């Protein structure tokens, strides 16, 4: 990492004059993180002493901060790491910890808790946060009179129970007697800026509270970032794109190979790659026309000035609705209907389903809305994450993706999933796909190459398992591998079939069970296969197998229930014991889920 701290570029008037400031900058730029840390303490110490002290102690006693994260995809974990890193540069002693591993007893000990937690599905916390969530929101929640805390909630504003898990933690810790350092911040998919601000405010507040210790003025500016970001993605050339489903399929799934050479993007099998999408030009055009605005009109965006058309194409989300947009637009439109919807979560969710920004604009036209006013209502276009379907060991400098273009018709118009159709329809081979890596998921192969793994996936959820097997093949990992795969029809939808069969023939894939829901009258899913194989499955678990589940939310839920059933039936355990058994798999890091 070259620069841990991004220093302010302008003079923080009126503290220093320009000459002093540049002198300081030149000095600070040349320091390593450790040197900077020492220097910050030294400078702070000078303030207290009033005189130059050649060998002042940098920090008398560091304040401890625990950054707890509950993360499904790795975003929260990555953010937590950045917050901790930032805190350390400010002289704090900071520790990051997965909520999964956070023990009840520590709740009473830790004085400064920063929580970063995402929300999934119907307002649920991530798997790894469920137990802590249950503890602090439950009847046995410990009293936390001496605890200072702050919550950064991650979510997606297009869901009705946006950031619910974060809200729950925030309220529960306050109810238990904890003191908020700062107000909770709810981040939409474009979390980076809000998260950066929250970090600075929290650390600033903690800094103020440091008793008898040198105080460091929180240097504004974002925490350290990976080289490629949503705003500065790497353009990965599209090497190859081919269909995976056969002609006549009711599904359409594609295999993409991206060239990461030169990006220095480092990922591991199980990670996701984020794609910075852009909206379909026809939709942008239709929206500009419906707004009676000039596509060339300049608007200020968080990344600088753009034409309205450019901004709508690549900066703002227009294919999905969010409550904040509806609220803002309702105000502009002075529409009672929209205002009413904005306060009715259930009704709003239903209403937003199948509508996009163009629908709202068409149904509730507003006279005299400026391009800037309109742009300010919109949510920043978030990146879309795809599980990487290749192992960097097998395909160095490449990332393979498994993409199902999302298309549907609603209200008389064809609708598109913005990233998926961009990847499938609007890019051609050789084009650069804007990508970046957004933290590392917990979805990883076991460190022990001998540990058996059970991979359960439906549809494109099979992608990371391709990476897993590639990796275990390259490494010659002796652990047994079992794949459960589900899709609609055997003859058309068996994604990567030849590869699985080859691995099976080679002995790498020890067991292969498939379920195709539409090949027979009664629908059959992977969870049905789990139940059929209960005895063997339980035996594998007893032998220490790690479990992976990847696929749609609903499938994840059904599989979870089936697993409890499997453990109950094959292990002869009552329901509560079976459930505890499966929960324990999570705690021991043997049950990984990537559901979306």
């Amino acid at each position, binding site marked *: 990492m070259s620069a841990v701290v991004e220093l302010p570029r302008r003079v923080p008037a009126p503290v220093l004059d320009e000459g002093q400031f540049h002198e300081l900058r030149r000095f600070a730029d040349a320091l390593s993180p450790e040197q900077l840390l020492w220097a910050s303490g030294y400078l702070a110490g000078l303030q207290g002493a009033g005189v130059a002290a050649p060998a002042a102690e940098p920090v008398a006693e560091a304040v401890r901060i625990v950054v707890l994260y509950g993360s499904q995809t790795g975003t929260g974990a990555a953010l937590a790491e950045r917050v901790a890193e930032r805190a350390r540069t400010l002289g704090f002693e900071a520790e990051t910890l997965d909520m999964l591993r956070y023990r009840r007893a520590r709740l009473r000990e830790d004085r400064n808790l920063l929580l970063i937690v995402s929300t999934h599905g119907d307002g649920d916390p991530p798997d790894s946060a469920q137990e802590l969530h249950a503890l602090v929101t439950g009847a046995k929640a410990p009293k936390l009179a001496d605890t200072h805390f702050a919550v950064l909630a991650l979510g997606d504003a297009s869901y009705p129970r946006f950031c619910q898990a974060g809200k729950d933690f925030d309220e529960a810790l306050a109810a238990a007697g904890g003191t908020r350092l700062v107000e909770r911040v709810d981040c939409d998919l474009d979390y980076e800026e809000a998260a950066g601000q929250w970090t600075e405010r929290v650390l600033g507040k903690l800094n103020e509270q440091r008793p008898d210790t040198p105080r460091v003025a929180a240097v504004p500016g974002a925490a350290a970032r990976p080289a490629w970001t949503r705003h500065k993605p790497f353009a990965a050339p599209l090497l190859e794109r081919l*269909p995976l489903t*056969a002609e006549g399929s009711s599904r359409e799934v594609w295999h993409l190979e991206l060239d990461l050479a030169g990006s220095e993007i480092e990922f591991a099998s199980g990670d996701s790659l984020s794609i910075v999408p852009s909206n379909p030009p026809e939709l942008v055009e239709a929206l500009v026309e419906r707004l009676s605005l000039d596509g060339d009109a300049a608007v200020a965006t968080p990344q600088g000035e753009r034409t309205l058309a450019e901004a709508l194409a690549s900066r703002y989300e227009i294919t999905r609705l969010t409550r904040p947009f509806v609220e803002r637009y309702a105000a502009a439109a002075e529409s009672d209907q929209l205002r009413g919807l904005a306060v009715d979560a259930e009704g709003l969710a239903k209403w937003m389903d199948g509508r996009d920004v163009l629908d709202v604009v068409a149904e509730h036209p507003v006279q005299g809305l400026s391009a800037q006013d309109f742009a300010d209502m919109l949510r920043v276009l978030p990146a879309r994450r795809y599980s990487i379907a290749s192992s960097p060991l097998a395909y160095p400098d490449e990332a393979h993706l498994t993409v199902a273009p999302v298309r549907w018709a609603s209200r008389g118009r064809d609708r598109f999933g913005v990233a998926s159709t961009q990847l499938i329809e609007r890019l051609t081979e050789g084009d650069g796909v804007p990508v970046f890596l957004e933290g590392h998921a917990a979805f990883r192969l076991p460190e022990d190459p001998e540990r058996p793994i059970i991979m359960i996936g439906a549809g494109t959820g099979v992608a990371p398992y391709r990476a897993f097997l590639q990796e275990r093949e390259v490494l010659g990992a002796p652990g047994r591998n079992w794949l459960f795969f589900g899709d609609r029809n055997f003859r058309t939808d*068996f994604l990567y*079939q*030849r590869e699985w*069969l080859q691995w099976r023939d080679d002995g790498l894939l020890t067991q292969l069970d498939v379920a195709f829901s539409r090949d027979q009258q009664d629908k059959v899913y992977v969870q049905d296969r789990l139940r059929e194989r209960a005895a063997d499955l339980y035996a594998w678990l007893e032998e220490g197998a790690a479990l992976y589940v990847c696929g749609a939310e609903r499938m994840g839920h059904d599989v979870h229930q089936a697993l409890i059933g499997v453990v109950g039936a094959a292990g002869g355990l009552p329901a509560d014991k079976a459930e505890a058994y499966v929960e324990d798999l999570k705690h021991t890091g043997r049950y990984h889920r990537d559901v979306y």
Partner: protein
Amino acid sequence: MSTDKPLSDVERIKTASRGLRGSLIESLNLRHTGAVHADDTQVIKFHGIYQQDDRDVRAERQRRKLEPQYQFMARLRLPGGVLDATQWLALSQLARAYGDGSLRITSRQSIQFHGLFKENLKPALQDLDRVLLDTISACGDINRNVIACANPNRSLLHGEVYGWAQRIAAHLMPRSRAYHEIWLDGEPVVQPEDEPLYGKTYLPRKFKIALAIPPSNDVDVFAHDLGFVAIEEEGRLAGFNVTVGGGMGRSHTNLATYPRVADVIGFCTPEQVLAVTEAVVTAQRDNGDRSDRAQARLKYTIDRMGLDVFVAEVERRSGFDLAPTRPARFDTSGDEFGWVDHADGTASLALYVPGGRVVDGQPEYLPLSGLDELVRAHGGELRLTCNQNLVLAGVSSAARPQVEAVLERFELDLAPRRTPLETGAMACVAFPTCPLAMAESERYLPALLQSLNALLAEFDLERENLSLRVTGCPNGCARPYLAEIGLVGRAPGLYDLHLGSDRAGARLNTRVRESLDEAGLLDTLRPLFARFAQERADGEGFGDFLHRLDLLGATSTSEQGVIA
């Protein structure tokens, strides 16, 4: 046969198959593949089933990381090619429910279905069982379907000869109950059955038997491992001339392979038929080449042992000597179409079935729904011919008007409107289902016929009775080496041209050109047709004409001549 060479892998599979069971039950239960285990692809042949894949989509599926579109062909065991109306309708239903919606009448008096997916095999075979049909040993290294002259209006012997076909077929059935276990959920046996006739490894290669009734050689008796030529004396069946060692298969690259017409080795009485059959089958069982499958057919065994030695072996095994060959004469290997009235007041109708293929929605073929109607109107016996045509036998005078109405309504009686070249032509299945195909065959035939009709018309030869047979590879399923004009596929769009068989199918033709495209084919035939139109003798066939004028060059293969 003693040999230093190791046994072929198929011999290992047969030995390990526990009476043709293999691991088929497990294979059928594999959900992640549409195929059966590699070894089971050999075992399943003995159950009348081939594993194939749709070659039209093979490359594209490979690109999409999908396995080939595996599917299966199932072929009936149907001695003498006789069916009743109920059975036909069940087959039709089965083709629609499980297959590709079409029936194929084969060149050996059977019916085969294509496009059966693995999970549909069992239900399909159970449906067959309900109408007393099966596919036992319709493929594999074992006696195949026993065929018999289908032409009921040529001889009073027909019923009797058909009876012998049934008896031979029954005599050579495997004892294994594997078929019942695997497909019909029969009780598994504890110990695999003995196969007193075949032994554990069955035969070295496929074995085909035909019964002919002169003057019709519709069964192509000379293309068979074992043949019986019915001899009629004073209106009764005196016995059979016995033929051995016929076979079509060869390969383009293995020069030790060749088509061979059968030798006539003597005469036996009807009572001796089963003994002769068993003697020939077991002589081949014990002397056939089990190392090199390309040398395993009886024709090679005979050429290796010498015909005299082989016949002596057969006579030793049967316990009696064959009598001298009796006179017999064939005039055609083709079918005669249309109605024939019989003395008992019934009639029969021989119907031309283009390509042997019956399917709805493809105008070049007869519609399956139309034939279903026809079969319902008739309600009686059906016979399949070895030229892939269909005979309605014993049509009562009461049913005939209705049958004729259906013929009219669906325009099923094509023979009068087609040239003799068309109605006599045969083509094998080839692409997209046959794994051996090198060139199109069945799908190419309609276009080829159009070109040849036009060429013949240039010389006023379009009503000429010319036999044309096309195959997509040299293995010879449509018996192309016994046609006056035979095309044998080499590569997409390229065929070897063979000319000069006689109309009775007793003389092999001669390869005159290799790897011709259609233009080359027509250019080669044009001057020959021109001379044929000018210089032929009265009633002389094209193949005989080419031989008389010695137009085929010196490469002419073994010439057997018509039995006299």
